[in-house]
């Protein structure tokens, strides 16, 4: 609200100088509005259905001080990170292997693409049946959910590599390994980062959902446990912490992307 008035009040020439501040003020204003809406909504719904932001904040501080929240975050992050690493590695490595085997690629491509359609969450009961109730079924879930977006993007990225650059590299004596590393990998980095923006939040979500179903630690367990004991504040706390986690991961990813793609002539990053 304040932002809009400020923009109107400022005379025309000075406008550009004020615009950044206006945007920041608008964002803060929006955040305050959302918090107020949350508070009003929570009061209206009652403590059984919604937790009020003040209580959530108190809970976050309390659980952080007691160390239990950090433990849950650590467990979830560890699970996400390992599952992500496995899924991401396979998602990158497989297209590079297939690049060298065009006939095999043509044979398996329809099967891989069909397997995209399998609802991965529906496989969790099978994973529990096959891999027990430790980390393994959760890692399978996280790994698969990360694998697909990475695989599809890298696969498309490899097809998109400028063949003339590859021909040039071959003529000047680059080995196939050097071409993969230098030409192909650098060409598909934008595709890879686009995939990571999907895959990283997915890894955290998948870990949390895995923890709903199996185990006795982690943010997912914390949310589900709170729900079972009618601790709505606990549920809200889990959701807020999980969201914050994903936002932090995205911010880090954004920085890495900027650094690696600094050579690019145009600012092609979409603000998400």
């Amino acid at each position, binding site marked *: 609200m304040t932002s809009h008035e400020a923009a109107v009040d400022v005379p025309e020439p000075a406008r550009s100088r004020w615009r950044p501040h206006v945007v920041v003020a608008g964002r803060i204003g929006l955040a305050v509005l959302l918090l107020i809406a949350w508070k009003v909504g929570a009061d209206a719904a009652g403590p059984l259905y919604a937790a009020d932001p003040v209580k959530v904040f108190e809970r976050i501080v309390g659980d952080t001080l007691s160390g239990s929240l950090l433990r849950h975050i650590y467990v979830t992050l560890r699970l996400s990170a390992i599952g992500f690493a496995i899924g991401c590695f396979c998602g990158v490595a497989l297209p590079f292997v297939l690049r060298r085997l065009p006939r095999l690629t043509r044979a398996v491509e329809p099967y891989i693409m069909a397997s995209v359609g399998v609802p991965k969450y529906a496989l969790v009961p099978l994973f529990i049946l096959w891999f027990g109730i430790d980390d393994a079924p959760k890692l399978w879930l996280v790994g698969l959910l990360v694998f697909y977006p990475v695989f599809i993007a890298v696969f498309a990225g490899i097809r998109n590599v*400028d063949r*003339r*650059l590859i*021909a*040039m*590299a*071959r*003529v*000047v*004596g*680059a*080995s196939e390994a*050097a071409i993969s590393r*230098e*030409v192909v990998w*650098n060409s598909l*980095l934008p595709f890879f980062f686009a995939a990571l923006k999907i895959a990283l939040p997915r890894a955290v979500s998948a870990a949390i959902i895995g923890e709903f179903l199996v185990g006795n630690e982690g943010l997912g367990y914390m949310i589900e446990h709170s729900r079972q004991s009618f601790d709505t504040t606990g549920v809200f706390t889990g959701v807020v912490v999980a969201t914050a986690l994903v936002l932090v991961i995205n911010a880090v990813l954004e920085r890495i992307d900027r650094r690696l793609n600094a*050579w690019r*002539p145009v600012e092609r990053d979409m603000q998400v």
Partner: protein
Amino acid sequence: MAAPPLLEVRGLSKRFATRTGREPSPWVIQDLSFAVREGEFLTIIGPSGSGKTTLLNMLAQIDTASGGEVRFQAETAPISDPTRLSPGLSCRIGYVTQEDNLLPWRTTLQNVLFPLVVQRRLNDQTRARTEMLIRAVGLAGFESHYPHELSGGMRKRASLIRTLVYDPPVILMDEPFGALDAQTRTQLQEDLLRLWSLGRKTIVFVTHDIAEAIALGDRTLVLSKPPARIAGEHTNPIARPRDVSGIMTHPQFAALYRAIRVEVQ
């Protein structure tokens, strides 16, 4: 006795693969034969669409031939088998393509050093040579610029010296100065002749510009319309060193130009 040719093309033919069910595609190049002596600057001229780039792609061993053979130092290149193709014949044939094909994520210096890095030949000596070449073509001060930060002429220079740094015995050039303005082009032609006079590489230079073919070459081959064959061969009488910008006023230019003009259809 004349030295044996460094590079020899015998009965070379090319037609591209067709989709099934269509009639066979026409021959782009048919029964083409010529030879290049060591240290010779050969220019090849032909109308657009006469298969000049296709010819160079085959000489560079990045495309297969449908018939005939390419011999380098009396050794037959495996050019008819796509799985045995050896691009650049183990770094002995350099190729300056029509597009600069610089790696957009690498700086000018990294791009120019790229062949030395992948060939594991980067040492003080090759590095010094690279610096000399960068200075010789006026790219000093632009080493850390990315390709998109360079002008078209600078990108051409970078792609030219990227091939010169690793010193292949034969260099193929595919209309490297085609897309440039006349001023820059003359400048680059002079640079090329100066660099060539230092090292006397064997150069096969393809162009559609008759004046360029005359200004640069020791000998000029004229290609016919497809299927490409040799329509004419002209030994260039103009003495070196040549004045590239004033080549058209040279007394022997007009006769040579007319003779080639007639054959380029």
